[in-house]
């Protein structure tokens, strides 16, 4: 007789099954590594899925050149610790044209340095499957996405034409040029991710923990001055505040929250008491209703 699996054990086993299905079904899979907490969970699950083998596909980080410095340091350390194959990709055209979120606006910058960069990297690697850490509870259009999400040759998602996905039988077949986006932690919630990190002792970027950091406040959002590239507006002086991040991305586009939660238990407690949703700190989601859906149709993760 076996005992019944807990909620988290069930989610873990289902994610492992999805990761193995990718390895078994695709010629050239790749795992998106964004260095955030969801990516850290995904990496941990992938190590479990293939143990004692090494992860049988590379990890890909799309570097926009504006990531927090602590994220990049963590990325290098993690790649070394676990010995996975790490691919770093930056849109060099964007670098050449000096694309940045201050002069070109967040949406154009995101489009060039993130969405187009991702497309470049996927085309260059000829990857037929890209694994990502998106969850269905993050945003309304993501709630509708399949675990194995089919993309046409230009990486676009057609929400009205998704393949039916029954039981745990996944249709992994592709025609030439098409690709698949795969989301092993689709059914995890933010709380599930945090409790898993806590109980499995998974390393995460220190930016998630509160400590004094230099910030400026702009229309209610706290932006951390991570390097000298952030243009200060007149009358602005960075001040030290005890803050942390609920979500990580490009530092000029990621809002911090005032918090004293400096370890996992207090982060989880604070999150349970909090009354704002996780992606609120991301400045790209609130552009317009349906903006995430539109981005996905263009190939954004």
């Amino acid at each position, binding site marked *: *007789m*076996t005992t019944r699996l*807990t*909620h*988290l*054990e*069930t989610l*873990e*086993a*289902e994610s*492992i*099954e999805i990761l*193995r*299905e990718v*390895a*078994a079904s695709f010629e050239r899979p790749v795992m998106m590594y964004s260095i955030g907490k969801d990516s850290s969970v995904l990496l941990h699950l992938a*190590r*479990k*899925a*293939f*143990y*004692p*083998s090494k992860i049988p596909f590379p990890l890909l980080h799309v570097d926009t050149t504006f990531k927090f410095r602590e994220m990049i340091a963590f990325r290098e350390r993690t790649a070394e610790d676990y010995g996975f194959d790490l691919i770093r990709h930056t849109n060099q055209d964007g670098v050449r044209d000096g694309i940045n979120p201050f002069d070109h606006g967040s949406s154009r910058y995101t489009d060039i340095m993130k969405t187009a960069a991702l497309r470049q990297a996927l085309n260059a690697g000829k990857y037929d499957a890209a694994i990502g850490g998106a969850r*269905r509870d993050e945003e*309304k*259009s*993501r*709630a*509708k996405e399949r675990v194995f999400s089919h993309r046409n040759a230009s990486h676009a998602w057609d*929400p*009205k034409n*998704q*393949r*039916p*996905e*029954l*039981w745990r*039988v996944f*249709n992994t*077949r592709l*025609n030439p040029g098409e690709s698949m986006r795969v989301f092993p932690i*689709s*059914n995890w919630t933010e*709380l599930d991710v945090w*409790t*898993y990190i*806590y*109980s*499995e002792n998974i390393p995460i970027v220190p930016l998630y923990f509160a400590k004094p950091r230099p910030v400026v406040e702009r229309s209610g959002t706290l932006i951390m001055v991570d390097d000298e590239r952030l243009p200060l507006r007149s009358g602005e002086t960075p001040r030290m505040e005890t803050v942390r991040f609920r979500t990580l991305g490009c530092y000029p586009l990621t809002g911090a929250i005032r918090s004293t939660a400096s370890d996992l*238990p207090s982060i*989880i*407690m604070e999150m349970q008491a*909090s009354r*704002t*949703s996780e992606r*609120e700190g991301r400045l790209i989601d609130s552009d317009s*209703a*349906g903006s995430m*859906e*539109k981005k996905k149709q263009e190939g954004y993760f």
Partner: protein
Amino acid sequence: MSLSLATPNTDLDLWLAQQTEKSLLRFLTCGSVDDGKSTLIGRLLYDSQLVLDDQLASLRNESRNRMVGEEGIDFSLLVDGLTAEREQGITIDVAYRFFSTDKRKFIVADTPGHEQYTRNMATGASNADLALVLIDARKGVLTQTRRHSFILSLIGVKHVVLVVNKIDLVDYDQAGFDRIVTEYRAFAEPLGFKTLHAVPVSALRGDNILAKSAKMPWFSDTPLVPYLEAIEVTEDQAERPFRFPVQWVNRPNLDFRGFSGTVASGSIATGDEVLIASSRKPAVISRIVTMDGDIERAGDGQAVTLVLDREVDISRGDLLSRPGETPEYSNQFQARVIWMHEQPAFPGRSYLLKLGSQLVPATITDLKFRTNVNTLEQTAATKVDLNEVATVTIATDKPIAFDPYAKNGLTGGFILIDRLSNATLGAGTIEFGLRRAQNLTYQEFDVNRDVRARLKGQKPQIIWFTGLSGSGKSSIANLLEKRLTAEGKHCYILDGDNVRHGLNKDLGFTEAARIENIRRVAEVARLMADAGLIVLVSFISPFEKERRLAREIAGDIDFMEVYVDTPLEVCEARDPKGLYKRARAGEITNFTGIDSPFEPPSAPDMVLHGAAEELVSLADRLHGWLKL
């Protein structure tokens, strides 16, 4: 592989321990359009305090000019996330939502009501333990209510809650509620649900959702959420036979060979003997490997890596079980399919079938009947259209291991995939195997053309291309063969040049030799078609009587004469083999079109104008016209 937390020594540890102890209930909502499914889920999220401040603010903003309750919120906006859904005010696809109460965690699949999205509803049902069937109190049981309930039973959802919504719009009327429940119970009787609970609610106003509503003192049963928190839906999987589909062969180095997969049912311990379904060879489990260390026993739902005590041939798609409780292993079974594609299902078509990690070519060999999902009536049919349900027999190209779906959903549920577009066309549930490979006997039949044809899932026939040299006969035959082969058909091309190099290399080009040439080719074509093949013959065959002879030799085999009509000057301009040039120069005699006549067929089965259209579209048109 336990996620139990360290000894609780803080409030948080206690709280986290409680979090992980919670059980999980997966349910779906279904019903008709506009019965308030999305509003109900929005209400559940709101009442379990999962709607956050920033979401509420934008929600209030978007709820202006919409139907709202006391909270001033249109709850359906919480769940209908696609732009098209907001524009049309409907749900197009399954949305997965998460909420939890103190007692339980929930994953909800919110499924569309519109008939054209029935397949999405089946998708949502396939991973659910329980279904909320919504009914508008003003409208009662509708076609879509019946359709969805039937699909629930097909997919094997055993627990149903009948949610009679908008009860506020009928003044909380008991008689109307009772009428609806009685009617639904009568309809659902044959569907085999284990539990059926009915609740009158107003999702908009929150009546009977979290607690009993004062407006309906006549309702003494359990309100919705307390019922969902309490219902026991898990069947003890450990009691069932052990099933382990091998997903991935784990070979980090020469010293380690493990088989990774998820236990689909039952449990296994080190030292236990297992049988491999495909080879029926035994082996003993020597290790159960996980990253957190080896474990002694693995049970239902656990993702592990098994190591065996001996070298046995196992690959992805194999199924491990215990001796004495093996799955069926056969290449024929009866199943119910729900069709999910605009392009209908036809008997004889070849598809790819995926069941667990097994992927094999398969054919619907027989369409037994179609079930009318509104009346449950069974009628004869020649095809299965979008959103229809039929009972069929399926033959796979090689045997696969399976269980009847009623015994095990993970080893008895499959999908069918289009061999060209790779779209998911339909889903099926196996009822029983039709031939048990473990006691194979030679059946009482003569192996004849019909048997061979059924085995190949096609109609043997001869397609005879006639036309000038260079008219495009061979190119069209080649394109057609490619397309047929991609569809899983078995074909063969007999080409003038190929046959003359072998079988007919003793023949020249006199009239007598030409007739003998055709006679031999026609006889070979007949033998090949008798073997079950679709034979494409690409021969100039310029004389009417030769072609008549070929048709006579074919006898009772379907014979299609296809005339590729391309003007001589076009063929000569193409001159793919340089023969026209040599004929004009007098190096070749008796060359058709130059110094030997071509007699156009008087009544061909089909004419293709080789100069007027692309070869691909000619081949496609011919394909569309063939009876396969």
